[in-house]
């Protein structure tokens, strides 16, 4: 019997094809597949089959083969031996399952709530000279809410604990219960700065379930929008980094240039963040001939400025001295905690869904993965800078190969009893949406994994044994989403 059902990104599979293993086998197959890090957990979720039975699913991504492996097990007594014991990257998913479904992973080292829905006690260290610094959930800037608890000895941080969940909206349940039109709006609101990433992920999921092929033109414009979102956010992040190290010229130039790119999205669909651009089946707005020219001209003009400012930023020694060796995450830790996106690539990991699990326009275009190796704030900034340049090239290629076609098709009925796994490499990293339909072809489960979900643990690790004054800089270099984590 097969241990895993093999899925491809954004391609539908039938529920019956997923093997239901017994718990012991399910557990050992997952641990085996992930032990050498050739596969990694991208999602775990479950649903209640009956009063006593809970079916757990685990989705693994095999990056080299470009395959997504799914297997399931039925749990009858409400508990099972924890995966975290052998596989650290499962820790957050198991905590989430415990919190949402009440499945107890036996032997899990710390079943702290994932989202601050109930009271819990913070980790503490005893000692006269140890002091605790609590920051948030209300912050001094206009940012999202999150609570950070530092255990310090002077300036040195022993442990950082992050408590999130203040933005919990229950978006997965909302999507299931909403009408198809509303679902698109909800998907775009999962994380306000990743409208295209999450929106695209949702569209791919629905198109996969309906087996709807969309036109090449629509795919290319979607790709352009996704890369513009990436450029705009990366520029914003680099500007914020410069601001945090007090290097004002770069901070204000990048602040201004970011708007140039957001305005392109505005021109395309009327919203600076790309809301209402996408719909399952294609696009709501087409790129007109005049827009194509303005896009080309404007992007070249802005990229020239971007390259100049990047040169200033990465050639100023005081900036480099500040970023270098700050907030280091080793590759080993990045693998163990299952980090994704920019933060993982800064640890020299080849994790980029555009290259490993291509969907949409990326199927016809090989993407080069931008990487750095030092795992510090500098590496994360460097990866961002490289990706801005790569995205610029990609946009140019997409614009050059735009056929004249219809961009929107109606969507047929969804397939019953099916499941689709959709991965999109947003600017933060791999965004995963999993949709399941019941026998009447209605969506009954929608699972979302934002890249932030994996990476918050990475931020905690980056601060370990670091300086408390480095926290804001590390935080900016990860730039994780609170809303995307809290859902």
């Amino acid at each position, binding site marked *: 019997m097969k241990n895993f059902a093999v899925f491809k990104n954004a391609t539908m599979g039938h529920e019956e094809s997923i093997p239901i293993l017994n718990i012991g086998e399910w557990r050992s197959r997952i641990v085996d597949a992930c032990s050498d890090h050739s596969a990694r957990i991208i999602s775990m979720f479950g649903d209640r089959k009956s009063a006593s039975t809970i079916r757990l699913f685990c989705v693994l991504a095999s990056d080299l083969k470009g395959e997504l492996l799914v297997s399931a097990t039925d749990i009858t007594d409400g508990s099972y031996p924890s995966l975290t014991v052998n596989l650290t990257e499962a820790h957050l998913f198991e905590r989430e399952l415990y919190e949402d479904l009440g499945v107890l992973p036996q032997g899990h080292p710390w079943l702290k709530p994932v989202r601050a829905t109930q009271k819990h006690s913070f980790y503490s260290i005893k000692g006269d000279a140890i*002091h*605790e*610094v*609590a*920051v948030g959930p209300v912050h*001094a*800037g206009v940012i999202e809410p999150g609570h950070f608890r530092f255990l310090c000895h*002077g*300036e040195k941080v022993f442990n950082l604990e992050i408590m999130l969940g203040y933005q919990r909206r229950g978006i997965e349940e909302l999507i299931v219960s909403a009408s198809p039109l509303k679902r698109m709006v909800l998907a775009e609101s999962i994380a306000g700065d990743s409208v295209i990433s999450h929106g695209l992920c949702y569209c791919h999921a629905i198109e996969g379930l309906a087996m709807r092929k969309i036109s090449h033109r629509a795919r290319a414009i979607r790709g352009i929008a996704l890369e513009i979102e990436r450029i705009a956010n990366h520029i914003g992040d680099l500007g914020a980094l*410069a601001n*945090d*190290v*007090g*290097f*004002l*010229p770069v*901070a*204000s*130039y990048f602040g*201004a240039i970011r708007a140039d790119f957001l305005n392109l999205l505005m021109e395309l669909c009327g919203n600076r963040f790309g809301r209402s651009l996408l719909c399952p089946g294609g696009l709501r707005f087409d790129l007109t001939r005049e827009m194509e020219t303005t896009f080309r001209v404007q992007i070249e003009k802005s990229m020239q400025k971007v390259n100049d400012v990047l040169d200033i930023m990465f050639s*100023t020694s*005081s*900036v480099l*001295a*500040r970023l270098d060796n*700050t907030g280091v995450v080793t590759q080993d830790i990045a693998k163990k905690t299952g980090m994704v996106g920019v933060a993982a690539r800064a640890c020299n990991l080849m994790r980029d869904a555009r290259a490993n699990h291509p969907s949409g326009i990326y199927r016809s275009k090989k993407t080069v993965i931008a990487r750095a190796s030092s795992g510090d704030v500098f590496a994360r900034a460097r990866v961002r800078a490289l990706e801005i340049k790569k995205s610029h090239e990609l946009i140019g290629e997409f614009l050059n190969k735009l056929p004249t076609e219809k961009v929107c098709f109606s969507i047929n009925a969804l397939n019953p009893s099916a499941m689709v796994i959709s991965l999109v490499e947003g600017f933060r990293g791999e965004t995963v949406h999993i949709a399941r339909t019941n026998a009447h072809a209605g969506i009954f489960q929608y699972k979302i994994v934002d890249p932030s979900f994996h990476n918050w643990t990475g931020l905690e690790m980056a601060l370990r044994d670091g*300086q*408390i*004054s*480095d*926290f*804001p*800089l590390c935080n900016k270099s990860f730039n994780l989403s609170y809303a995307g984590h809290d859902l």
Partner: protein
Amino acid sequence: MEYNFLCNIFILIVMPPFFVGVINRVKSIIAGRTGPPILQLYHDIFKLIKKNAVYSRSTSCIFRIVPLTSLLIVLCAGMLLPIASPSPISFQGDVILFVYLFALARFLTITAALDTASSFEGMGASREATYGALSEITIFIVLMTLVIIVKSLSLNKMLTHGQNVFVADPSVILLFLAFFFIMLTENSRMPIDDPHTHLELTMIHEVMILDYSGPDLGIILYGASIKLFVFMAFTAMIIFPCSEGPVWAGTGILFLKVLAVSIMTGLVESFTARIKLIRIPQMLIASFVLTLFALLITLFDQRML
């Protein structure tokens, strides 16, 4: 004499916020922005003075008396300085009083920060105490070198145009550079501290005054600008000592000198990023070494003569 002294005091009270505006303007021009008006700090101070203060329940009377007391202390220190004309309050050893008045003001600010029982302010207080202690040595060696050059322990003599023209002296240039860095440290400017950040975890001076509001905050901002002014004036006077001409000329020259130092500060702040907190002691030690060289050069010079 009284007229001259009143003129000194008038400058000390009125001018300081202007130079903060100059620094900010230089920074915003380089960053490609228009930036706030040069007189913004005056508006801020007046606005804050008109407001009511809010006090945390965990604070005591220390917290309330510190802003005004430290403002007065800083003003006293400023009066010892020959600003537009030689100060009438002058005696042998007033340099030591000058330095320790600032130390007293710092002590009070630290005490008030600890009084709030906030973990942020505690961190800020510990940083301020550490870097303050490290910069103090450098200040004393700067003063010691000046004392050897002018052979007097009085600020007036040290910083007024006597028989010594400092400008061409290599040791004085070293002193100037070292003291410029100390000026940035003492006044929590870049690259030591970022006066514009809102990030509690990285601030030094700003984090200690987080709990202040209304008139108290206004007084603190005002006091900080006076301290900055006094330090910038002192830095400038190391290279261009105060002249003994008429008071209007003295005022004009002082204005230009401090303006030059403000612009220089703005430029330095624009073109450097903040250094890691853990590296600040290294920078302070570097400035200490500079002054040590200045001292050695001066001592050799004296022996040669």
